[in-house]
């Protein structure tokens, strides 16, 4: 898929995840598969309920107790994360594979100083003593662009703005130079100018370290700007994967086209922006059709509702549709 | 889901809560119908004094030959009644005071805060003792004293809950819809505070029962020969050493059962009352 012949850094294959809830089993992911090459930034876009966050949490093996992985493999640097034991995973997390979260303030411990929280990761993974961990924490704060880092390292999260908290989150995530960073809606809730600087930072640091990024977002603009390739998800399925420019200029899956058509852009008036009919299917149903978008699609035929969902591969693109555009 | 079906669901999921409701039903039965159902007159002495538990006297008899079982059951009404009265009183006053303090802030908050601080400066049971001793050794005063010493916990919990919701969107929306400050406080914020207070009620019932029994144990409040768990434990305490363990044990167990039941009920009540738990 990436053309260089190298095996991908992360390969998700046929992943299916269910959640047991009071009102039934939610089939949150079904047959999800895509790959991320070293150094690549891949965006995972979709609306709420698409399963993008569940995918991220499954890769990190941070799912809720009610979750069950019913099939698939997640191969990261040759290791199957789904088969690995907790000790191996604990080694991985923070060192090779790390994550930044949507609400920066919520992902920091409010009663500990930020410098200590960064030092924690170093102490756990980098085999350094307390003094050196402290010094490296301050250096990391400087790298993420926090002014007066030695003083700020002694600050508590409530003393910092949302943007600065997210920078601290990035410092923690990047402290051990992971090979893959998963960013789950990292800029939602931040001001637009702060968003831009935070994403610049992630891109810069990533490029310097050859780090790959999985960027989860509902913001198509963010995906356009920052991602080499984009994975589009709908109701727990991957519907399309393609290089960014190609995806948005020539979408092949009807949902991708509809999603783009519903997004406000300069030059379009309100009447030119269309909605997507219908709503998400109820993922608790046992009788979901093979294509979960079919009910909302104007190109559907009977086969879409009965035959297995095809996964077409062509020229670096993946489309899960019987009648692509 | 209706309220009833939700209630059934909670009880089905949570056998411990269901158990506590059954126990509560048992206690309520004893309180309401006890005097009519007991085999012996609780005040009637007989010449079978200090008889151990047997088929005739399930819990044995005390030093005056009174049937311990009948006395324990009949005492339920008094102990539960007094505790209930105290809790009802403090529930209303404490919640209103707390909500007002938390919602309005400013001087109201400061005054009520100092009031609760003053009460909490004393060891609460000692304060209750002092209040009853000073105001007069009556049942009513025991109820008031119990209410007063529980006031701080209600006021504080209500204050925190009201404070959190003070800036909530629905408060602004209510003001936009023409609600005055009082209406917002009582009609919008208070209904959100009540579920949490329900848990408090149940927990405090247990504490209030212990309180009234404790005060009568040391001779304040209820006087013999009235049947009341605290007095019975006090009377029976002297006989434990000589081997007549049943006189103090059974009222003690009844106390324990009552407190235990109310503590368990607290959580279950909240699950039922809070609509967020409805699916």
């Amino acid at each position: 898929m990436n053309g260089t012949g190298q095996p991908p850094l992360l390969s998700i294959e046929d992943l299916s995840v269910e959640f047991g809830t009071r009102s039934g089993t939610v089939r949150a992911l079904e047959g999800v598969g895509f790959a991320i090459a070293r150094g690549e930034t891949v965006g995972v876009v979709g609306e709420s309920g698409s399963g993008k966050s569940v995918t991220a949490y499954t890769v990190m093996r941070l799912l809720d107790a009610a979750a069950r992985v019913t099939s698939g493999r997640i191969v990261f640097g040759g290791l199957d994360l789904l088969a690995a034991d907790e000790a191996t995973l604990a080694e991985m997390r923070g060192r090779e594979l790390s994550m930044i979260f949507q609400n920066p303030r919520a992902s920091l411990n409010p009663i500990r100083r930020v410098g200590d929280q960064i030092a924690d990761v170093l102490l756990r993974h980098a085999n350094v003593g307390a003094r050196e961990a402290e010094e490296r924490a301050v250096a990391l704060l400087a790298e993420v662009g926090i002014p007066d880092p030695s003083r700020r390292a002694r600050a508590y999260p409530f003393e910092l703005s949302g943007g600065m908290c997210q920078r601290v989150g990035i410092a923690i995530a990047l402290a051990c130079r992971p090979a893959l960073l998963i960013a789950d809606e990292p800029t939602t809730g931040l001001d637009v100018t702060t968003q831009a600087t935070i994403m610049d930072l992630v891109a810069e640091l990533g490029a310097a370290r050859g780090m790959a990024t999985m960027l989860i977002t509902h913001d198509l603009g963010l995906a356009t700007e920052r991602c080499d390739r984009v994975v589009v998800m709908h109701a727990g399925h991957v519907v399309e994967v393609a290089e960014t420019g190609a995806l948005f200029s020539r979408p092949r899956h009807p949902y991708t086209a509809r999603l783009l058509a519903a997004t406000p852009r300069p030059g379009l008036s309100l009447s030119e922006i269309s909605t997507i009919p219908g709503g998400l299917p109820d993922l608790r149903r046992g009788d979901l059709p093979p294509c979960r978008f079919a009910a909302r699609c104007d190109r559907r035929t009977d086969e879409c509702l009965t035959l297995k969902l095809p996964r077409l591969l062509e020229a670096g693109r993946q489309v899960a549709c019987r009648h692509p555009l | 889901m209706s309220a009833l079906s939700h209630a059934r669901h909670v009880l089905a999921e949570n056998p411990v809560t269901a158990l506590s409701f059954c126990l509560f039903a048992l206690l309520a039965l004893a309180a309401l119908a006890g005097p009519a159902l007991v085999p012996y007159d609780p005040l009637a002495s007989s010449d079978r004094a200090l008889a151990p538990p047997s088929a005739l006297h399930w819990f044995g008899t005390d030093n005056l030959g009174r049937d311990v079982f009948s006395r324990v059951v009949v005492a339920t009404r008094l102990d539960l009644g007094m505790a209930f009265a105290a809790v009802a009183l403090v529930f209303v006053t404490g919640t209103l005071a707390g909500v007002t303090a938390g919602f309005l802030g400013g001087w109201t908050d400061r005054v009520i805060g100092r009031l609760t601080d003053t009460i909490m400066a004393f060891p609460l049971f000692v304060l209750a003792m002092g209040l009853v001793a000073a105001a007069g050794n009556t049942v009513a005063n025991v109820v008031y004293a119990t209410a007063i010493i529980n006031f701080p916990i209600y006021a504080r919990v209500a204050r925190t809950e009201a404070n959190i919701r003070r800036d909530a969107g629905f408060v602004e929306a209510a003001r936009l819809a023409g609600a005055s400050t009082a209406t917002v406080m009582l009609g919008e914020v208070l209904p959100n505070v009540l579920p949490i207070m329900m848990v408090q009620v149940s927990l405090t019932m247990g504490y209030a029962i212990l309180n009234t029994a404790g005060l009568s144990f040391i001779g304040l409040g209820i006087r013999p020969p009235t049947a009341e768990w605290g007095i019975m434990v006090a009377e029976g305490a002297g006989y434990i050493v000589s081997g007549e363990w049943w006189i103090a044990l059974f009222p003690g167990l009844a106390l324990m059962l009552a407190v235990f039941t109310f503590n368990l009920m607290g959580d279950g009540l909240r699950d039922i009352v809070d609509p967020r738990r409805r699916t």
Partner: protein
Amino acid sequence: MNAPLVEAEVTAPPVLAASGLCKRYPVGGARLFSRRAVPLLHAVDRVSLAVGAGETVGLVGESGCGKTTLTRMLARLIDTTEGEILFAGEDLAAVPAARFARHPARASIQMVFQDAEGSINPRFTAADAIAAPLRRLKGLRGAPLAAAVERAAERCGLPKTLLGRFPHQLSGGQKARVGIARAVATEPRLLILDEPTSALDVSVQVVILDLLAELKRDLGMSYLFVSHDLNVVRLICDRVLVMYLGRVVEEGPAEAVFRAPAHPYTRALIDSVAIPGRKRDGPRPRLTGEPRSPIDPDPQACRFHGRCPRGQDLCGRAAPPEVTPGPKRRAFCHFPLTEPA
């Protein structure tokens, strides 16, 4: 004191005209025996704006710019420190916020909130939420009240079957509709919308924006639309105001301002927004530095000085003048931009 920008040719007076609005908060609490003046946080500093009949005015700016405080003042939820709000011939700012609930104009100015879930009382149903303003402001009861609630729900595309549900049982889009149904139930003249669609999926957002456009036409309302999403603002607003640290820095017709912003801050905002589907060519300038403190700001300096890529000494010594970069536009800058974005 700046006069609000109102078209001279139009004969209809604006629905709402606010001038010189200020909101200052004392910081740090009063000291009992100190002679020093208490420092004041200038959340809103001499803002004037007008909303014409049938107009949608956009209000943009980042956190700390004062737009939330401004909307709360206009909705009369908080008191103004200074300034007047002319509405239907009366200065509403003179009425204390605590007493405005009983004022006849209460029903004419309503608001839709960003967090639809938080703005509906979790203990009450959707029907209760929609009924509240009708009950208190229009005095409806019983059957007429129920009928009015159903009408409002229907108008907003909310199925009757959902009226008995609690907020946590409704989807994001449904909650948004409840919030809107409640706000338009009394048929207000001015509707203030505080980020009404930012928590919604893009496909739901379109539907809600369409609904808002339809309601505006049918009920003859004017909108004040606050949003951080510049793409949405550009889509539906006739005019836009840009705020920074409590002041209006630029104002004008939406398309004109977006195409050729005059104020460097407006330019920076627009530059930060990514356009879905279109990759940008070339790097873009980034705002560096920290925003100035809104506490006791220097009246003889531009608030944006220190972060402005065009800033010079003059900006720190003199308050920026009002300039007119185009017809019906104004900006406050010593060195406004002239090239298009």
